[in-house]
């Protein structure tokens, strides 16, 4: 049942939110031990929320557009009174005293939060293996990764643990796991969704976005959480473009550009290249005018990203010092510089290897004498990417590109080589650097039978046309693989 279907049934009294929730909790009970999508399942508060929705319906009040819809939250979104960990030891014992803006908006629309999902520590990673609490597994093949960093949210939706989920996308952290888990995942325009309460990784790139089983459900969730927020100075001031406005409009006459540099980028596997081409053909068959387009600066995206994101992260993660909250390791008492010793021990023990690697990269990139060569130059690349996208959007309404270079890879396969892992984001990063929206839609399977995702990219605030094209792509997609946790067959 779709999220929209659940909300309609609950609002009309055909189903209770409680029964919907119990169905999802049942699937969690059956398969969560295998998948490990969650850091925390909120059985009791979810039941209370569902009962409150049912009481509202019984009293003749409308609980909202997400009435009774079970939603999973990436565990870097602050939830009042509920531990929020970023899958890091450094936040041990910390409970936020406030809700993220998106969490408040979900509650206002009657959504039921079922749990906090696993992620790569502080959203740094592409496999959800960099978690202090253990890896999440892909519901389509338990020996493979779900992608990352929002792997827990992607897996939760794929496994039917939640109808919807929220993730955060800094360089592809929603779209890549969505592709690997066979679900829809969207990164909105920078500023469309408030970041207040999203624990920052790289502030100029981070955006919260939806995971769903369908394009329409993703649009429903995005429309519920987007819009101006006085608590986030970078949130856009005007009413957002509705994602759901033209879902059934088709693509007749729509101009679709296939990004040459991304569609055949180095390291993209042949089956993914083939599915992307078939997706373009499918849109052409539906009436779109499809052509190839060049976005030359996109090839520098990965390098620029790995300077900007770690630089901002090195500053954002400085506050985890043991002074005010979370983990504190005692400094050598009475020793010279014991405050420094406390910092060192706390941060050495609290952060995992990938987080430390990025803090060091970023600290170096911002150092006196290196700023211009690294951070400054990366920002100039960003400007070039925006310029090249602008040129492409003079000729096209939306662009098409692969999401991830391959289908889900095996657990442990890429953990030894960070660069190979980083290459997972080569097709998704340009949208973050430009601040543009992009959505990954499942489109057939790879040679191994596992899901492949194709991205639709749009200019800033182009959500309406992006979801319009994504819905057409979804309608034209070949049959999908069914997760093994839901009775699907094993991959080849």
């Amino acid at each position, binding site marked *: 049942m779709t999220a929209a279907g659940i909300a309609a049934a609950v609002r009309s009294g055909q189903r209770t939110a409680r029964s919907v929730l119990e169905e999802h909790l049942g699937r969690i009970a059956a398969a969560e031990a295998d998948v490990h999508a969650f850091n925390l399942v909120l059985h009791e508060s979810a039941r209370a929320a569902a009962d409150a929705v049912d009481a509202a319906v019984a009293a003749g009040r409308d609980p909202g557009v997400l009435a009774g819809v079970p939603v999973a939250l990436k565990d870097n979104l*602050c939830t009042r009174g509920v531990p929020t960990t970023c899958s890091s030891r450094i936040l041990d014992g910390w409970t936020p005293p406030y809700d993220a803006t998106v969490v408040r908006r979900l509650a206002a629309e009657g959504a039921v939060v079922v749990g906090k999902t696993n992620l790569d520590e502080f959203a740094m990673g592409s496999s959800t293996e960099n978690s202090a609490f253990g890896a999440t597994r892909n519901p389509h093949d338990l020996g493979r990764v779900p992608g990352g960093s929002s792997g827990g949210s992607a897996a939760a939706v794929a496994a039917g643990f939640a109808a919807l989920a929220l993730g955060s996308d800094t360089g592809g952290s929603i779209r890549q796991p969505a592709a690997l888990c066979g679900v829809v995942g969207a990164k909105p325009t920078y500023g469309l969704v408030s970041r207040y309460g999203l624990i920052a990784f790289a502030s100029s790139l981070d955006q919260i976005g939806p995971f769903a089983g369908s394009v329409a459900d993703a649009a429903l969730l995005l429309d519920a959480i987007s819009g101006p927020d006085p608590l986030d100075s970078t949130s856009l001031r005007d009413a957002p473009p509705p994602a759901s406005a033209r879902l059934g409009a088709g693509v007749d006459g729509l101009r679709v550009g296939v990004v040459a540099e991304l569609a055949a980028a180095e390291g993209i596997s042949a089956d993914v290249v083939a599915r992307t081409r078939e997706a373009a053909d499918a849109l052409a068959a539906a009436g779109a005018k499809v052509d190839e387009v060049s976005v030359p600066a996109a090839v520098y995206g990965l390098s620029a990203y790995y300077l900007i994101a770690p630089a901002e992260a090195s500053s954002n993660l400085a506050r985890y010092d043991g002074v005010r909250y979370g983990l504190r390791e005692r400094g050598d008492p009475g020793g010279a510089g014991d405050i420094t010793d406390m910092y060192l021990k706390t941060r050495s023990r609290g952060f995992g290897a990938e987080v430390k690697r990025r803090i060091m990269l970023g600290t170096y990139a911002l150092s*006196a004498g290196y700023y211009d060569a690294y951070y400054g130059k990366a920002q100039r690349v960003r400007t070039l990417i925006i310029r090249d996208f602008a040129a492409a959007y003079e000729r096209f309404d939306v662009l098409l590109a692969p999401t991830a270079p391959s289908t889900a890879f095996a657990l442990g396969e890429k953990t030894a080589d960070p660069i190979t892992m980083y290459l997972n984001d080569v097709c998704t990063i340009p949208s973050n650097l430009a601040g543009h929206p992009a959505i990954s839609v499942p489109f057939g399977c790879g040679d191994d039978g596992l899901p492949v995702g194709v991205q639709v990219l749009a200019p800033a605030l182009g959500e309406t046309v992006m979801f319009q094209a994504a819905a057409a792509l979804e309608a034209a997609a070949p049959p999908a693989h069914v997760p093994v946790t839901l009775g699907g067959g094993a991959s080849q």
Partner: protein
Amino acid sequence: MSAATAGDAPAVAWETVIGLEVHAELRTATKLFCGCRNSFGEEPNTNVCPVCLGLPGSLPVLNKAAVEYAMRIGSALHCGIQASIFHRKNYFYPDMPKDYQISQYDVPINVDGWLELSGGERIGIVRAHLEEDTGKTTHVGGGGRIHEAGYSLVDFNRAGVPLVEIVSAPDIRSSEQARSYVEELRAILVATGASDGKMEEGSLRVDANVSVRPAGSGGFGTRCEIKNMNSLRSLGRAIEYEAARQVAVVQGGGEVVQETRHWDEAAGRTGSMRSKEEAYDYRYFPEPDLVPVDPGEAWISAVASALPPLPASRRAAVAGASGMDASSDAVATVVRLGLDPFVEAVAGGPGSRENVAAIAVRRLANEVAAEIDSVGRLSPASFAALVRMEADGSLTAAQSRTVLKELLASGGEPKEVAGRLGFEAMAAGDLEAVVEEVIAAHPEEWARFLAGEDKLTGFFVGHIKVATEGRANLGAASALLRALRG
């Protein structure tokens, strides 16, 4: 610090070069990036929220009132006010919640201005930018400094309080000038309403960059930054000490090392805090959580036109009214203490306008300044009445001072107070009677006076003063003596 000389070497005059960095807390109702109250002296950690505690996920939102106050300061310091951005200044310190400070770096809100000292000299202002304050750490046990303490307590009430940092050009040449600069700046901050300028409470904090060079040389010596001066007096002492120390280093054949030095008030000396090598690399980069601040021409000119009269123009006004020098101490004192409305109040009365105003300035700079806490008892109207009584001879200068002290102590109207004190102006007939009595008592001296011995005027006036118990207008008495001589 004006000059120092070495033993046998040819005398070299040394010049001190000083630049000041002043941090002023702004008097906004709320903090710079959150809605917490900006208030001093409350229970620790009561004015805090997720934003000013730097909790994960929180984001800053700029306080418009702080921008307005910063613009007032920039405008009063004749700065260019421009579109600006915020940067992050990264370093670890336990009272800084995010372990970075949101500050302004290469694109500050105010640039390139100047400040005119009460003595008339102009000191350049390089910039005046917005930034957030840190919390306060109290080191408990041990030596009171972080590495010696048993443990430390942090109060975050001050974290996120808006500051404007005002950076002067290295135009200051003496400790006296440095003090005068801070006094003038404080007066401007208070006049604009942007800050209460209380150095002792820490709402005004001054760091000094000090170097020395042979007098007349164009270059700059290596500078040291001096911190921890909590009063104008410590500022002066610290600069004197540091300049003398640097001169001694150079004259001893050594080189001044660039470093940050800590002023020890009790010991009366500066000590090394951080060498250049140990200096933080702040890794500044643009704050991605905030958008650029562009006040725009309309707002900038609205702020400029709403500025109250500033000390320099008020000094000029007082000087113009009284005929006194605008750079005189008396005029500076009147303006510094906000007494210029009293000068305005005497204008327009009888007598020479300048003479009356000059008397007013003298009384204000002396008697009123000495009892400034009681100035509330003195109304401009009664002060004006008093000054006119002194100007027209109804009261002697001594009587006027006595009446003024009484007005400051107990209030009241000058005529009534003067009467109570027996200072009522003597009628001309009464004075003549006294003069005649005095002449009758000293016939020998009167004969010599009549014969042309002018110096005896003083003798008679003295006796008249005694006989009237000081109530006589002595000028009138001398005139009477001369008139009787014919």
